[in-house]
């Protein structure tokens, strides 16, 4: 007989007490905030979507198939469902269904949003999803670079700078030679920059966040300067031509999936392959075991004869090459370099690493969410919805803030992340 049991008035009451206590104040606060979030979303639906143009929006799915959605009734449905959910969430919580309901509500809200934006017009759903995957590609590549660094214990906040350096180098070298050599040069330059980050962080114990920021601003300043001084005056040095999409024979004719997945540039296929390869390497090989050990408990690895610092140098340098490849995506997409062409996507890639829980597959999922936001924002600009274009450009960052804040500290971060390792 234990001390607590004997003081319990009755088993049922005790179990009830345990259940109410198993929700910490933190969890209760979160549940309440989520409820408020539902009400805000319901409010938006009432204030904006319900007063839309009306009319049916037609979502095309490639080929001849399409779905028609009536805007106003859908907006009412969305508002009522979200308000009801908010009420339930605040009054008694939704327990285990919380995540599933949130996902369903989010999808309902987005569908309503799209129906409102495209009211009375056509909206290519497959086209948007195709563009979402395309926009997600540099994020995936940047995030894999981040994962390679962070899994070995080095914070790499310089992904943005590495992407930008890759974009610039591939444009310059690609114009002078050809784009494929430009891509290789981009990988080399970003690898060197990443190595500098590793060198400063490992050898001199410089704060990794500060080194990362320094690299970001160095690359932004240098590429902007060279762009205005060299590229603008020598247009022949800034025109590589783009890399065309390659339809995978057979697969691209699958309805719906084909146009989304298999009519893309080789960057998309390479990014998807890298997700698979990195996952396998990290979790199934000797290299991966050591990399993760170095990021979690470098001393444990070090005392077993694993060379911690060399592992970190190698990983960060490889990550640089991956980011350089990611940067060349912009050049291959538009055929030239523009000042600050990456426009903060490297920072979103950092968010993707966190939201994806330092796992390549998780990062792919997170990148798709951001890519979808990007593609949607672009579509809305074309549809002329009345939302100011500046706001649409902000959308991916706004979504980043929302998602990172809600995923928050649930994720496991490599235990030795950002801590210098000293060999005696």
């Amino acid at each position: 007989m234990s001390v607590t049991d004997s003081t319990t008035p009755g088993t049922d009451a005790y179990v009830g007490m345990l259940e109410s206590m198993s929700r910490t104040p933190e969890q209760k606060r979160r549940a309440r905030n989520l409820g408020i979030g539902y009400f805000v979303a319901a409010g938006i639906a009432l204030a904006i979507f319900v007063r839309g143009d009306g009319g049916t929006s037609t979502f095309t799915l490639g080929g001849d198939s399409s779905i028609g959605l009536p805007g106003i009734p859908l907006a009412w449905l969305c508002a009522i469902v979200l308000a009801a959910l908010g009420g339930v969430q605040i009054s008694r919580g939704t327990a285990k269904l919380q995540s599933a309901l949130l996902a369903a509500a989010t999808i309902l809200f987005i569908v309503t949003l799209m129906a409102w934006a495209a009211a009375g017009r056509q909206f290519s759903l497959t086209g948007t999803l195709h563009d979402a995957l395309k926009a997600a590609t540099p994020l995936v590549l940047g995030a894999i670079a981040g994962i390679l660094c962070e899994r070995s214990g080095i914070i790499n906040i310089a992904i943005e700078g590495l992407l930008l350096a890759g974009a610039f180098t591939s444009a310059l070298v690609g114009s002078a030679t050809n784009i494929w050599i430009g891509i290789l040069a981009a990988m080399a330059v970003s690898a060197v920059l990443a190595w500098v980050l590793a060198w400063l962080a490992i050898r001199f114990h410089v704060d990794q966040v500060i080194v990362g920021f320094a690299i970001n601003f160095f690359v932004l300043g240098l590429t902007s300067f060279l762009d205005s001084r060299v590229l603008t005056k020598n247009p022949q040095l800034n025109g590589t031509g783009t890399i065309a999409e390659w339809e995978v024979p057979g697969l691209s004719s699958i309805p719906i999936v084909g146009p989304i997945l298999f009519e893309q540039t080789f960057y998309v296929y390479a990014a998807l392959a890298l997700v698979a390869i990195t996952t396998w390497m990290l979790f199934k090989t000797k290299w991966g075991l050591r990399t993760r050990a170095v990021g979690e408990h470098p001393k444990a690895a070090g005392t077993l004869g694993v060379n911690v610092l060399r592992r970190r140098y190698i990983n960060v340098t490889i990550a640089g090459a991956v980011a350089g490849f990611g940067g060349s995506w912009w050049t291959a997409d538009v055929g030239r370099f523009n000042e600050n062409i990456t426009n903060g996507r490297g920072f979103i890639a950092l968010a993707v690493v966190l939201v994806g829980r330092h796992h390549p597959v998780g990062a792919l999922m997170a990148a798709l969410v951001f890519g979808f936001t990007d593609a949607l924002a672009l579509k809305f600009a074309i549809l002329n919805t009345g939302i100011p274009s500046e706001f649409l450009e902000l959308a991916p960052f706004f979504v980043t803030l929302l998602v990172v804040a809600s995923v928050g500290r649930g994720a496991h971060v490599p235990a030795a992340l950002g801590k210098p390792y000293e060999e005696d």
Partner: protein
Amino acid sequence: MELELRGITKRFPGVIANDDVNLTIKTGEVLALVGENGAGKSTLMNIMYGLYHADEGQIFVDGNPVTFETSGDAIAAGIGMVHQHFMLVPVFTVAENVVLGVEPTTGLLGKLDTAEANAQVRDISGQYGLHLDPEALIESLPVGIQQRVEILKVLFRDAEIVVFDEPTAVLTPQEIEEFFNIVESLKASGRGIVFITHKLTEALKVADRISVLRRGKTVGEADPAEIDEIGLAELMVGRPVQLVVDKAPSQPGEPILSVDQIHAVDSSGRTLVDHVSFDVHAGEIVGVAGVQGNGQTELVEALTGLRDVITGSIHLGSEDITHATPRDVHRAGVAHIPEDRQRAGLVGDFSVAENMVLTRYHDDGFSTGIKMDWPKARAVAADLVEQYDVRTPSIQTAAGNLSGGNQQKVIVARELSRDLELVIASQPTRGVDVGSIEYIHSQVVKARDEGAAVLVVSTELDEVMALSDRVIVMFRGRIVANLRRDETEHNDIGLYMAGAKEQPVKTDAETTS
């Protein structure tokens, strides 16, 4: 195999950690290396394991000079080490931790052969009776089992000489017994064991030979059959030592601290302190025993206002301090000696004088408005340094530069030098030299004799047994026993600490009367 360290000297800025040390270890024997904290035991072993490099001296294996550039070299030479702080990756499995660095792989790309790794781990585990599941995650295992994983790591690398650095510090008495059995079986298998400890009874129990280090020097070798604990302590400290705490029987008065059904959880809702109730009376010392990580830290945090409790109440006399702030708790007359002096007790970069007024710079006329009265603070600090025998070059010396024992005395001086209702001392002598231990213990007893209620939390069972008038045992956040010291045996407490035994419910009135 025979390993010899000859003339080893290692200097760190300001200290000579090892000064011309000689040591020989043979396979098939157990050598105990004893010495106080800071005597240079760990430095010496790190040199032997290739983690540090000696400034002077040479290591010999079977008479041949060798150099260990990295721990990899030492491992290759047949030396294995079980570190005091475990070198295990918490999110890895047992097998992953064991094979790290020498992973079995298949194919050209280095694919891990998990099945092979698991089989090998299971095999060695069975051979030495370690009972380890290769697929268990480290973070889910208790400390005693984690230590076996460390031992298995060493065996997996075919070490002939195994170094244990303070291996019993984190174990329950029963786990210590099991550990000694493992040491015996390692010795029987022909391996050499180095057992680093400051617990003399353990050294006398398992060693074939004892080497004593004092201030970086080898000051003697002893045969456990010919020396007793007192003689060994004298050799270790360099002067006669009193090993038992000198105190009169307690005269408990009114309850001062009354804790009723308090419950605390971490941010993810996991229970840390589970409906704990007890009283501490004026003029008695209550010791909290338990293996590290069973809620003692959080209990102290709750009592001192550093952690909020979800349910239950804490009373100091008639005053409710359940949700009081740390400053309120301090003002109510509670002294707190925190378990980690560097993290919570002192500001290392502040001077001794500044640290002395850290809890009351805002009171007692040390400040007027926004201006500190430093001359007054320094005068009080100088008095306290004198009174509490703090050995410091001056009161302006940064506290972080003092030895562990003197840092602890600064905290003791600050906390105990005022009128007190309650003293909460958490790990009061961790990492402190024998001389300071004696002194701190006498101060704690003095506080009791002056009528304060005292709560001592320690993972060193010897300390709890030496100081306490009553012993509380915590296991997984709960109090599983509340016993009078004079009716209690060491081994009995050990069973409670391991969760193997639980006391039927008793009220405090029954245990104190």
